[in-house]
């Protein structure tokens, strides 16, 4: 039961934050198990995403998947006021999705046997993002999140989640 990584996208479809708790898989000969203390973070241009592609490419892919699924689900679902797309599961991972009314999107990948992370994502938004990004005068909204307090609190929070390894 582990958490693999977390993407945060803003209203303009840009990835403002990416945090990973596993080593990126680069070649077949690299070690399989990831050490618990290993974290990669960042939104820098040259950063590597979780699958070894450049972060920009990977973020676009993830965003595309999530966007299409969300539209698909909302078209199929006739009941008004229901939440729409929440998560999908494959045999390798489970992807959890949380969207705020302001257009901020949280995408988290965990292992397939995890329960719903919706509440955790909501807590992350209201207690970490709002506190350390929206209320931070030194952080430009609509740009990449480069902020010590935000990163530290996010780390602390995720490590305290019951599903973390």
């Amino acid at each position, binding site marked *: 039961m582990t958490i693999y990584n977390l993407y945060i996208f803003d209203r303009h479809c840009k990835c403002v934050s990416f945090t990973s708790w596993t080593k990126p898989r680069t070649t077949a000969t690299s070690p399989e198990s990831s050490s618990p203390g290993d974290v990669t973070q960042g939104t820098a241009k040259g950063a590597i995403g979780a699958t070894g592609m450049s972060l920009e490419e990977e973020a676009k892919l993830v965003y595309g998947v999530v966007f299409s699924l969300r539209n698909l689900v909302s078209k199929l679902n006739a009941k008004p006021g229901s939440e729409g797309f929440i998560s999908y599961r494959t045999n390798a991972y489970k992807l959890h999705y949380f969207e705020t009314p302001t257009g901020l999107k949280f995408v988290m990948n965990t292992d397939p046997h995890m329960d719903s992370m919706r509440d955790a994502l909501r807590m992350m938004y209201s207690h970490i993002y709002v*506190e*350390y990004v929206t*209320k*931070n*005068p*030194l952080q430009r909204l609509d740009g990449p999140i480069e902020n010590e*307090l935000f990163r530290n609190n996010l780390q602390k929070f995720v490590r305290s989640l019951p599903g973390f390894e």
Partner: protein
Amino acid sequence: MSAILGQDDRRLVAESAFDLLVLEMVDVMHKSPTETENDKEAAYFKLESLGYRVGMAMVERITRDRPRFLDTLDAVKFICKDYWIALFKKQIDNLKTNHRGVYVLTDNNFRWFLRMSSDGSSAEISRQAFAYLAFPCGLIRGALANLGVASVVIAEVSTIPQCTFQIKIAKA
């Protein structure tokens, strides 16, 4: 800003609204078409004057039921305790004086700096944070002025979230 002031509990403002207003206030004052040193000083002066006026009014409300102050030290101690609690929900952590009209107030965990963080260098962050101290300087100066003490207040920030305010009392 605080429930201890008013008897009527229904007329409270959301704390987040106040926090965000303060952020915007400083940003707005600092936006100008030219980035000269004069503009920064002008913005600082405007914010300080705003604080002055607000401080005068605040202190009228808070000292409504108190007896008169014995001397300047008493007034400064009041600012460190009740006034700071009403504004920032905590006291000033350290008060130093040279008994000749200079007081240094130190706040180790200044409320407005609690969420400030950025990836720049510490010096850079301190420089940016300094702009947010103009309003509290005015608050202190206004409070003292309305208590009958003319003063000059200078703020300093070395590492957030700690900041100091230096009060120089004008000679009578």
